[in-house]
């Protein structure tokens, strides 16, 4: 789709959608949002960019192949889940929180790290699927 409107709009929408995805990610846990939704919104941002230009250029925006995000995300999520066992000898997946609330970010804890992991896995998986499909088409 080679229209001027879409191109111009997507240039602005890409950062906005990415920002929105981070907002959703941080808002999660107690409110609707979280890593999965955030990750989907972030991948939509790249897909929209890919529609307006081409997927190759949006791939170069990412710098790394999206497939690499999957193991990184999985590792983050897994470490967040294992952390309580190693740190405080508490059961697997116990939420450990930083006692004070941090401005902008809200409360920090292992659940947030877990969600960031999910976010990365979702972005990685969705973009890998879409790029593989578009390359083979």
């Amino acid at each position, binding site marked *: 789709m080679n229209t001027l409107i879409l191109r111009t709009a997507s240039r602005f929408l890409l950062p906005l959608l990415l920002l929105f995805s981070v907002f959703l990610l941080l808002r999660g846990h107690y409110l609707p949002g979280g890593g999965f939704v955030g990750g989907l919104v972030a991948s939509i941002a790249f897909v929209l960019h890919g529609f307006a230009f081409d997927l190759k250029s949006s791939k170069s925006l990412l710098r790394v192949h999206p497939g690499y995000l999957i193991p990184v995300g*999985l*590792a983050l999520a*897994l470490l967040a889940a294992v952390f*309580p066992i190693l740190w405080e*000898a508490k*059961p*697997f997946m116990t939420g450990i929180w930083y006692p004070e609330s941090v401005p902008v970010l809200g409360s920090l804890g292992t659940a947030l790290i877990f969600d960031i992991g999910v976010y990365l896995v979702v972005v990685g998986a969705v973009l890998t699927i879409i790029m593989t499909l578009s390359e083979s088409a």
Partner: protein
Amino acid sequence: MSPQFIIWPVIFPLLLSVLLLFTWAKVNLQRFISIAGSVVSVVLAVALFTYTRSEGVIAMQAGNWPAPFGITFVSDSLSSVLILLASLAGLAVSVFSSVGINSPRVRFGFYPVYHILLTGLNGAFLTGDIFNLYVWFEVIIICSFVLITLGGERKQLEGAVKYFTLNMLASVIFLTAIAIVYGLTGTLNMADLSLQIAKIENRFLVDIAALFFFVGFGIKAAVFPLYFWLPASYHTPPDAISAIFGGLLTKVGVYAYIRVFTLIFPADAFIREVLVVTAILTIASGALGALIQNNLRKVFSYLIVCHIGFMMAGLGLGTEQSFTGTVSYLIHDILVKTNIFLVSGLALAITGSLSLRDIGGLYKQHPWIALLMAIPLFSLVGVPPLSGFWPKISLFGAALDTQSYWVLGALIFGSLLTLFIIAKVWAALVWQNPSEKIEKGEVYGTFSGLPAGIRVRYVFPVALLALCSLYVGLGAEFIMDISTDVALLLKDPKPYIEAVLGPEQSLIP
């Protein structure tokens, strides 16, 4: 050791697959990591086994949410022994797949998916939450879909479609069953369910829910008449994958049967009758199916079905002795079924064919390997003192005690036909002269031309599992001891419930 330890057999394979994802393109490194990691898994499983054996039932509440609200992981004698067996089978298949799985398949992620499959198996054995059990089942079947289609050969895809359709159906039915039970009791924790289900007045509804579980697990465990997907799909992927499927995947269904029909729906006469009748039909149809097959792996696939019936029969008879039989049969069956699929892989590598009409001459070419193959094959029959013999004694004894002569008849029928089939396989594989096709070199095995280092990796896994099953046969006292422990816990799950919910809660009538 603290109770927190029991989750490690689940986490570790997952960590391993993350590591394997990082080394995506490096085939040989992946093979090395996979084997080394599987050794560590065995060590963890042994630690869990000894820990559980000394402490009894151990419960861990994930996320520190108390039961029955959070997800509980429970290691009792049954789960810990199954995890140990799964890790041994996992190690054997890991070694075998370093030669049995070609590099393109590895480059498409065979190893990460394989280790996530093992994660799913261990998770299913450990979880104490019925919905979580469903989630682990999903992890397992998603991985198995990938493994069964990996490589994308025509026959693989054909088998995968059948496998996929019926297993999805099974998941839906299982989920429906969970929904009914949740609607009835408002809890998903298996220990809590055990208490709540007993209180329900409307037994008819409980039986309906139990039947849903029966059908859902029945498809996964491949019982009559729901087994048709198994012989249609298990022979299609490479041997290493067939081995892990044949050895462990249907056994997860059997494990779920044992868990659900002893803990949640115990000793219900109606369900027991259903179990016994399907067991008899499963034994008969599996054995007869195996009789007429000509492809080595298809013969073994039907034998899986036949022997699932043995375990179901023990579960259905519902005495302590029959539970002992079921559990010890399960122990024997995981080792031996994994091994016979590896044997078929080895036979394919040596002779180049899987057709009983073509193969042969193994004794002339490789007498030692032929001797090695005799161990798993004749353990499967239950020739004393090999491993299949002792569980059958318990099962026969239980059938006699409860005067279930139909069951006894079916067990004897199944055993005799297994003997006949294995004798036929043995005669074809080892003694028969290879067919013209092989003589002329139209089909040929690659095994003899391989360097010794590769050949060892073909034979070692078979030898490892053969040793384990020899131990199960010769050290039967220890195995029967474990099985009796498990049977006692299955008969009276009070220690399990107490470990999960704490001593006070389980006292409430």
